[in-house]
């Protein structure tokens, strides 16, 4: 078999045993890799009613078929399972060098069940596995943990993905960290890892997979690198990181402010240029990436390792909290990284606290401090309270939906979809984004539904996904569904979302590596299949059509900016979306016919016995 080892490592931390989990070529061809392959495995192992934090709850680390190949921007891995935050399908991805190390360890991925009696970490090298004591790592932050494990294992090319204190305490939106400040942040996969008493996964080795047509792959990789380097977007990302979007997004009304009640804010204070002016920044790249959008801040505080922040983080702790103090945003990002915390869910939850305090729902006594919009110091204190599970931090650590319920508020005030907090793009600015958020497989997800790319002019000709009026809902249901399927596949290939690869190019790369004969049409079908296997997992845990919606707070008309008084027509887009997907309006389930058409025979049998 080319492109894969054809096996996962199957670990039971309860018994301390490991074994190979062979994967057939047919299975891999159907689910490709990354988060999609993980969804197929989780579907097999996560029974209805299972507590996400129970020992039997599966946790999957998964790579894609391009890992370790010459293809650029293929350095991501997926961490998946049932989300402790949402209770439904959960996935997160991260870049860096971990992916290549995991692939070189001799496995395409790792599936972990069971709960260890004591803290441990997993060490996988050249097909051999050790479960090692991690008692001395307890309470260590994610940077220290990575360093201590690498030192213990003798250094060299070792990849470490770990949790910080947030994961140890099972904060519902704790993430998994690797390569210092790279984060698989969303959905609480760090809490799932913590529930297993698993502090880290360390991987190393020199095992390679076969490539069907290495000359073709090299040629395609060369072409891809040339395309990437010749593109101005790459130059902008290299210079300013993802913060390049801040001031442009604000003009488009796409940067949420004041807990989604405004979209006008002096964004210039937080732009990529502003960060460049204030800090000494060194760019860094994930393995095999010619862009290098990562940032190291060299002069924030002597002796401190400070990454980022990315656009999402800067917005969540910036405009969303009406905060324009750069230092507090950088420090908030640093805390999220060292503790291993999703900066989006944390930022949105804190912004909701500001909002409730402003309304008089929360008092100083309840919170333990005053909460005034824009108070960067309060943000930092709240972050520490979340991680340490102190006072008001306990309820903040459960996310906005739990907060709304706790304080007797309308759940539509909680800025989330299916329990996952809204990212930092606004569905009122791009209606195709709004329907993508409502239907995202893990909840509100900008990475599957980056429809702003389309309406800014980046079309996908093979699938007739064409730019249109960003503030119109006409035709967006079907177009967004197809785009979502394509973007979902990027997490199967474990590719960076900035990789400018067309469906045709993706097929050529995949076929060159595997020897398969994927066409763009079959690729779209694979994307549809990916969306449906993830949907099937969530349906098992209770998702219905009623969950495919945006919260009221994100649908109220804004009063100013370029999107004033325009809101998306969600019902219209959702009906069109369901029609394309072949999902049943009354139940929200994929139809039996659609499942069979996509080759999801077992799912069809389970849903329609």
């Amino acid at each position, binding site marked *: 078999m080319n492109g894969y080892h054809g096996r996962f490592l199957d670990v039971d931390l309860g018994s301390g045993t490991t074994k190979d989990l062979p994967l057939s070529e047919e299975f891999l061809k159907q689910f490709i890799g990354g988060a999609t392959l993980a969804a197929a495995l989780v579907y097999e192992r996560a029974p209805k009613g299972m507590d996400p934090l129970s020992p039997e709850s599966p946790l999957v680390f998964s790579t894609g078929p391009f890992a370790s190949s010459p293809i650029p921007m293929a350095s991501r891995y997926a961490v998946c399972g049932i989300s402790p935050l949402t209770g439904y399908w959960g996935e997160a991805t991260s870049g860096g060098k971990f992916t290549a190390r995991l692939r070189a360890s001799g496995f395409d991925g790792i599936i972990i069940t069971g709960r260890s009696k004591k803290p441990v970490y997993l060490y996988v090298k050249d097909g051999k596995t050790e479960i090692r004591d991690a008692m001395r790592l307890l309470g260590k932050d994610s940077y220290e943990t990575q360093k201590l494990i690498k030192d213990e294992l003798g250094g060299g090319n070792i990849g470490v993905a770990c949790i910080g204190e947030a994961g140890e305490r099972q904060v519902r939106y704790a993430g998994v960290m690797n390569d210092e400040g790279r984060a698989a942040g969303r959905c609480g996969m760090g809490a799932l890892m913590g529930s297993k008493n698993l502090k880290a996964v360390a991987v190393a080795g020199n095992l390679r997979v076969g490539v069907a047509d290495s000359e073709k792959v090299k040629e395609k990789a060369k072409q891809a690198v040339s395309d990437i*380097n*010749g*593109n*101005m*977007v*790459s*130059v*902008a*990302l290299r*210079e*300013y*990181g*993802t*913060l*390049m*979007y*801040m*001031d*442009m*997004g604000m*003009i*488009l009304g*796409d940067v949420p402010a004041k807990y989604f009640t405004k979209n006008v804010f002096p964004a210039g204070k937080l*732009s*990529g*240029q502003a960060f460049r002016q204030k800090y000494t920044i060194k760019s860094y790249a994930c393995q095999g990436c010619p862009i290098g959008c990562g940032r190291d801040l060299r002069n924030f505080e002597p002796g401190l390792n400070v990454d980022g922040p*990315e*656009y*999402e983080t800067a917005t969540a702790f910036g405009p969303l909290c009406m905060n324009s103090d750069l230092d507090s945003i950088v420090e908030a990002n640093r805390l999220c990284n060292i503790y291993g915390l999703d900066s989006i869910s944390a930022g949105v939850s804190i912004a909701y606290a500001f909002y409730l305090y402003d309304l008089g729902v929360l008092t100083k006594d309840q919170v333990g401090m005053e909460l005034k919009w824009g108070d960067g110091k309060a943000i930092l204190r709240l972050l520490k309270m979340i991680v340490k599970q102190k006072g008001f931090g306990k309820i903040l650590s459960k996310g906005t939906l739990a907060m709304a319920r706790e304080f007797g508020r309308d759940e539509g005030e909680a800025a989330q979809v299916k329990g996952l907090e809204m990212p*930092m*793009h606004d569905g009122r600015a791009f209606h195709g984004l709004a329907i993508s958020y409502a239907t995202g497989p893990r909840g509100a997800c*900008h990475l599957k539904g*980056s429809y*702003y*790319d389309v*309406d*800014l*002019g*980046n079309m996908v000709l093979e699938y007739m996904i064409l*730019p249109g*009026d*960003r*503030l*119109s809902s006409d035709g967006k249901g079907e177009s967004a569904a197809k785009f979502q399927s394509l973007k979902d596949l990027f997490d199967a290939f474990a590719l960076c*979302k*900035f990789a400018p690869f067309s469906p045709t190019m993706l097929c050529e790369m995949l076929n060159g590596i595997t020897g398969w004969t994927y066409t763009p049409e079959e690729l779209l079908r694979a994307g549809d299949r990916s969306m449906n296997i993830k949907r099937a997992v969530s349906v098992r845990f209770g998702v219905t059509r009623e969950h495919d919606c945006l919260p009221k707070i994100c649908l109220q008309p804004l009063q100013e900016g*370029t*999107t004033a008084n*325009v809101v998306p027509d969600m019902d219209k887009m959702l009906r069109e979306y369901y029609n394309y997907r072949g999902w049943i309006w009354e139940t929200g389930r994929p139809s039996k016919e659609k499942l069979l058409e996509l080759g999801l025979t077992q799912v069809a049998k389970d849903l329609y016995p």
Partner: protein
Amino acid sequence: MRVTVSFVGVLASFVGAKTATVALPEGSCYEDLLAELGRMFSSNMPEQLWDKEKKTFSSPILATRDERSLAPIDGSELLDGDQIKLFLMAAGG
């Protein structure tokens, strides 16, 4: 006639200006505006942004009069007083 051009967001830093007012003959279209922008700013712009031989943007740039709809400018004539916004076609993070 005079047309005002805004280079939105990071584009301004690569062009070296946030806005430009361009004088053009009556009946000019977007291609004419591009030629003038090239004359004014091509020495600042990296090759990934401006193709000096073809005298046009080398990466996709969205040019619009309407930042609400983002409807791209078509081949029709520009009008005196037009306010054109240029966006780098990239978002996300």
